């Protein structure tokens, strides 16, 4: 039978219940402090103290080797922790990118010196990383990167601009994809990845306010920024392949379907208190079913990662279906509330819905647009 995907039967972590309980007890100390608006802003929200507390529990970089401070737990155990965080809308932005992709990239492609330097800091919750991919002329078309790193004595000189860099203004480090050879016309040839401090001379960060009035992303300008030779991560000229692998980490997590989960929880609570009917049950039941199946696939992907597979295609499926479900949820809420659905702070449900309604457009942009993702899927299916 034709089966293009490798979603397998999932395995349940042996002591998942105990681990969950521990995470929930930890979160009980925090979650009462977060407003519905804040929970609705999801995993971009930066709270260093929270990340440090999480680090102290051993829940950042938890699959990494002990010699860097990790606890060598499985990808499935990590999945337990991160889905518990997402379920309550925890402010994980100060370590999310580091834990999800920067750390794994350093572990995979970095030098021993780089691992020693960055991984322990990430694990303690002290190192926020940002991702230097998009540029003013390179969004979905990532291969047309033009920000350059030119070879000079003892290092590289960077000139150019990155944009939409989430949390750049709060980050200690960046991993940037830079052109070390040729021009934008050379596409994915001659691109390399570098890791360096955001505090270097010549780096200017300009905050860009989004439509909610908040500024979580930025424009980062590099003006003759000097970085040492040991800032190169992985292979010189091998940046494109590394980024592709990194994006698989970026796209494969439960953060691609759970952003709106706190909204569903508020909705169910509201209906539980105010009374339901068949049509309301029907709408909520359909969303619950969708989420249950997405979770099944997400856990399955964690299993594939654990086995060392690169689940690019499967991650694309979950991202496409997941972001669609996340984006639909505010409309479900409106449909159930009818005319009484103001997007203001009158109830916790309307407050969180206001946050998600306004941030929802980004769900299918970040990590690769819906159209790019579907293009990847089509290619994977053999459309040629």
């Amino acid at each position: 039978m034709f089966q293009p995907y490798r979603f397998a039967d999932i395995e349940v972590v042996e002591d998942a219940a105990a681990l969950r309980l521990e995470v929930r007890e930890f979160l009980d100390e925090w979650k009462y402090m977060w407003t519905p608006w804040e929970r609705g802003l999801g995993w971009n929200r930066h709270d260093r103290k929270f990340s440090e507390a999480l680090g102290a529990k051993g829940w950042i970089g938890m699959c990494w080797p002990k010699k860097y401070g990790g606890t060598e737990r499985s990808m499935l155990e990590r999945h337990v922790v991160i889905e518990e965080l997402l379920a309550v809308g925890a402010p994980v932005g100060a370590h999310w990118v580091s834990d999800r992709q920067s750390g794994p990239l350093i572990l995979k492609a970095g030098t021993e010196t780089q691992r020693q330097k960055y991984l322990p800091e990430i694990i303690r919750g002290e190192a926020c990383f940002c991702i230097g991919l998009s540029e003013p002329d390179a969004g979905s078309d990532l291969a047309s990167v033009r920000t350059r790193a030119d070879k000079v004595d003892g290092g590289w000189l960077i000139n150019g601009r990155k944009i939409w860099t989430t949390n750049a203004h709060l980050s200690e480090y960046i991993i940037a994809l830079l052109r070390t050879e040729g021009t934008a016309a050379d596409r994915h040839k001659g691109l390399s990845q570098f890791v360096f401090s955001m505090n270097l001379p010549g780096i200017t960060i300009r905050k860009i306010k989004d439509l909610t009035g908040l500024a979580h992303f930025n424009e980062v300008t590099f003006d003759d920024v000097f970085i040492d030779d040991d800032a190169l991560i992985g292979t010189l000229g091998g940046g494109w392949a590394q980024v592709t692998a990194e994006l698989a980490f970026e796209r494969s997590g439960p953060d691609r379907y759970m952003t709106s989960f706190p909204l569903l929880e508020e909705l169910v609570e509201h209906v539980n208190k105010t009374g339901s009917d068949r049509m309301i049950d029907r709408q909520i039941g359909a969303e619950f079913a969708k989420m249950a199946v997405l979770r099944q696939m997400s856990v399955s992907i964690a299993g594939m990662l654990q086995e060392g597979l690169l689940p690019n295609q499967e991650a694309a499926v979950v991202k496409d279906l997941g972001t669609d479900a996340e984006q639909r949820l505010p409309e479900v809420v409106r449909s159930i509330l009818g005319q009484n659905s103001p997007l203001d702070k009158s109830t916790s449900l309307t407050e969180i819905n206001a946050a998600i309604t306004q941030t929802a457009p980004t769900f299918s942009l970040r990590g690769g647009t819906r159209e790019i993702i579907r293009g990847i899927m089509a290619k994977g299916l053999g459309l040629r």
Partner: protein
Amino acid sequence: MSNTEISQLMVDGLARVLAGFADAQTMDKIEKGETGLGHEKSISELGFDVAMLSEEDGGAGIGWKNCAKIFELLGYYASPTDLGEQIISQWASSNAGIEINGTVPHVALGTVESITDGLVSGTILVPWASGQSFVLVEISKQDTQEICLIDTASATSIAPADTIGRVPSQKVILANCAPLQIGTLDGSFGLTHAMAFLRSSQISGAMARILEMTIEYCNTRTQFGRPIGKFQAVQQLVAQLAGEMAATNAAVKLAAMGMDKGRGPLEIAIAKQRASASVALVASIAHEAHGAIGVTEEHILHYFTRRLWQWREEAGNEHFWAEEIGRQVVLGGGENLWPNLIGLTEG
């Protein structure tokens, strides 16, 4: 040999047989109720109807997870026989202590009421039935999963049912009919749930076939000087089809895992909801991509899309199950939502 290895051998064996009856002409004959095509004999000779029975009872002792592979394969070949129903029938009869003498009973869709003690009434749809036959039916009751064996000779009326799936079926009306036997299914779910699982799996398999056909067509059909699969507009559609298929497949896995662990009702509800809900998009994209040729009688696509439209309604459509799921979820309130979701795999 492990259960999984046994079931893989079964799946391979069944695939070889089904592949011989997979052309449009044969399917047309099957839908018209023609006999003597040899497919029923070839399939029954495999003896897979007892797949779920224990080895002492002559079965293979495979669980729901492995059974789903057989059901999906049937869907992948548009189910030219009622092997899926037979497996459910054998499982239910054995589980509820109903004795089978001779032919394996059909399984009814729909339930009957038992208002007068020992007598049942209701209207049921019986796929694959013709003439007089024996049928297993679920008796609608709270808190217990009763089934009964009916001889349709004692029905008030039997008429050929006109379904868009077009497999030979009967609509049977029972009024204060005395069942031959009554039994109770031991476990967490009843006959309708088992049938919902069968249909979910068949939908999943049929979608895999539809996706495969659609990709093949898009890579060969040329317009504007190139295969239509090269057009991004078409690629985006096919990707969506694939996503819905993948979700349906995962939903079946979720249900099977729950059933094998002694849970089931909620997991099955989710599977059938998700499977049925995917049908609209999958069928419309497949037809959109195939263009006019795909809606012709001679093209094979409609044997799969008509089955999908039929199966999504049977044993509860997506709206029925969504209400069922929603009722439970709302009752639990916000604070139980997440634990309920986790409980599906870790309960």
